[in-house]
């Protein structure tokens, strides 16, 4: 089963944000969506999730289903979405927060199956150790895990994450990314994660897609598509690449060295 996005155009007023985007995501696969701020990553994710409406193009799942034609509720049974932060104004216990993921599945009262999905998501994200704490009292990483558990309880086949790690410290970034990678593989979910860190994308995703000015400019495994030219084109920075334990890694190029360091490097190269 594959998520197929073909010639997708999305605009705000006269401005075109996504320009003929074509993308595939298979089940069990986690795709890293890369690009500079304003490149259209969030817009793409929100369009797949049905939050933005495309001006043209198709998004289909499993060959036949055109997602844009589905009711919101039916779409929510196929696609789940994890926003950047929890932004919680009211106290709410963890189970109730995860239960929100079942909204498309029940009317007014959650049934036994809904609670079973909630408990399963809580266990998978290791939230049971937190008891039934109020989500406003959780750390950033814990809060993010609640949001992912909510998406998992939704029992959808496509999982979209909009920069879920941007507000987290390194420990929770790694933890979140490991969890996302694990649950997409184990549950045969097609995952798309918008992410800023190129090294983490190389490490934790199966494939990366670069968006630049609303267009896909590269698509493939990080080791194949990362190049100093591509990264310069997308981010306007000079980089050097290396390989560590089989993963491609991106480092700032010489132009980004601090002056003192550059002087030392020049001196050492002269001495050599």
């Amino acid at each position, binding site marked *: 089963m594959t998520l197929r996005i073909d010639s997708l155009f999305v605009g705000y007023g006269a401005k075109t944000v996504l320009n003929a985007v074509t993308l595939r995501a298979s089940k069990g696969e986690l795709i890293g969506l890369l690009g500079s701020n304003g490149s259209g990553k969030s817009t793409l994710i929100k369009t797949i999730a049905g939050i933005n409406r495309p001006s043209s193009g198709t998004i289909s799942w499993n060959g036949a289903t055109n997602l844009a034609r589905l009711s*919101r509720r039916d779409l929510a049974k196929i696609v789940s979405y994890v926003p950047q932060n929890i932004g919680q*104004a009211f106290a709410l216990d963890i189970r109730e*927060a995860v239960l929100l993921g079942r*909204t498309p599945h029940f009317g007014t009262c959650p049934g036994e199956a809904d609670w079973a999905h909630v408990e399963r998501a809580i*266990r998978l994200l290791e939230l049971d150790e937190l008891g039934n704490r109020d989500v406003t009292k959780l750390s950033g990483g814990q809060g993010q895990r609640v949001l992912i558990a*909510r998406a998992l309880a939704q029992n959808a086949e496509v999982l979209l994450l909009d920069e879920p790690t941007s507000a987290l410290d390194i420990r929770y970034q790694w933890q979140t990314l490991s969890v996302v990678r694990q649950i997409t593989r184990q549950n045969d979910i097609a995952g798309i994660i918008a992410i800023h860190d190129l090294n983490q994308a190389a490490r934790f995703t199966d494939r990366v897609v670069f968006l630049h000015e609303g267009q896909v400019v590269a698509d493939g495994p990080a080791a194949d598509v990362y190049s100093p030219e591509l990264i310069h084109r997308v981010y306007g920075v000079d980089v050097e690449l290396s390989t560590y334990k089989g993963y491609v890694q991106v480092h700032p190029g010489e132009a980004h060295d601090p002056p003192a360091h550059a002087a030392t490097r020049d001196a050492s190269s002269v001495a050599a």
Partner: protein
Amino acid sequence: MGIPVSSAPNGGPVVTTAAREAYRAPRSRYALQTAAIALGLVAVLAVALVGIQIGTSDATLQQVLGTFWAKLTASPPDNHAARQIQTIIWELRVPRIALAILGGSTLAIAGSLFQAVLRNPLVSPYTLGIAPAAAFGASLAIVVFGATAGGAVVSLVFGALALAALNTVLVLVIAAKRNLGPTTLILVGIALSQLFGGLTACIQYFAQDEALAAIVRWTWGSVNNALWYQVLVLLGLLALTFPFLQFRSSALNAIAFAGDDAATSLGVPVARVRLELIAIAAALTAVTIAFTGIIGFVGLVAPHIARLVVGSNHRFLIVFSGITGALVLLVADAVGRLVIAPGVIPVGIIDALVGAPLFLYLVIARQKANE
């Protein structure tokens, strides 16, 4: 309905054995909430029965129950004294108590709805400008039709209702046209509040002393002049809207706790639900304050008190906010009739004086419990 193990679209064991065991938990999960609602309803009934007995001519519980029985069986009173006490109970006390119960409920329910759809715990039923608009309408009615004439009461109700409705329509049209988010809606409400506040101040500035006093009295909010038709109108409004609110409670949870984008991705038509619920909350508020004047505090604080007891899930919060609001106004009204008896302090004044310390206590107690 069973657990969809084999039909899971993702394949694989969607529901584990352990999750299956967790199955039984939901049955008792909401036991506290259910018990709180049942106890709350009993408390409302009990306080109402006490409240009906309080007044210049004290009535006994027996007389109160006797009046209900007489009305139920349509049996005429035995003598003049019995007729007198039955008239006092049935024509004065019961409408007053019923208006306190229903007015407290509607304002508190409206408060919980506004707080949820605007995703802001500081919001009250008056944040979108309904109260200042109603006050302007009432002031106009008082100045134009006179403050005390018999027909003035009707014009007062209609004046307040018309302007509150106008304000609501303005907010809804602006919100629908511009697809506004919560913060902008609150700012629109603040602007409209200022506008109608200014207009009311103009009227007050030019009004005669008697009219000015009537305007100020109206803004205190009271159930002193409760009439049966007001009780029936509010009862009808609640009966009509409450089932729909329960039906929308899970959508409301998604909007309040997940935000607009995530709620949309959870299948909720956010803009439509927001407009529907603002319209209902505004109608509940407008009709109530058209009858009672501006009763402050209860609409802001009853939802918070309710949240401390039953949690934030709107499936229980809406109804328990209503119960809390009813209790707050019932107690405030009883206190207002006791402290300077036979004089009566308007319920709008007392509810803030009684409710604020109670609320402070709850907030501090909760803070301590969390530490």
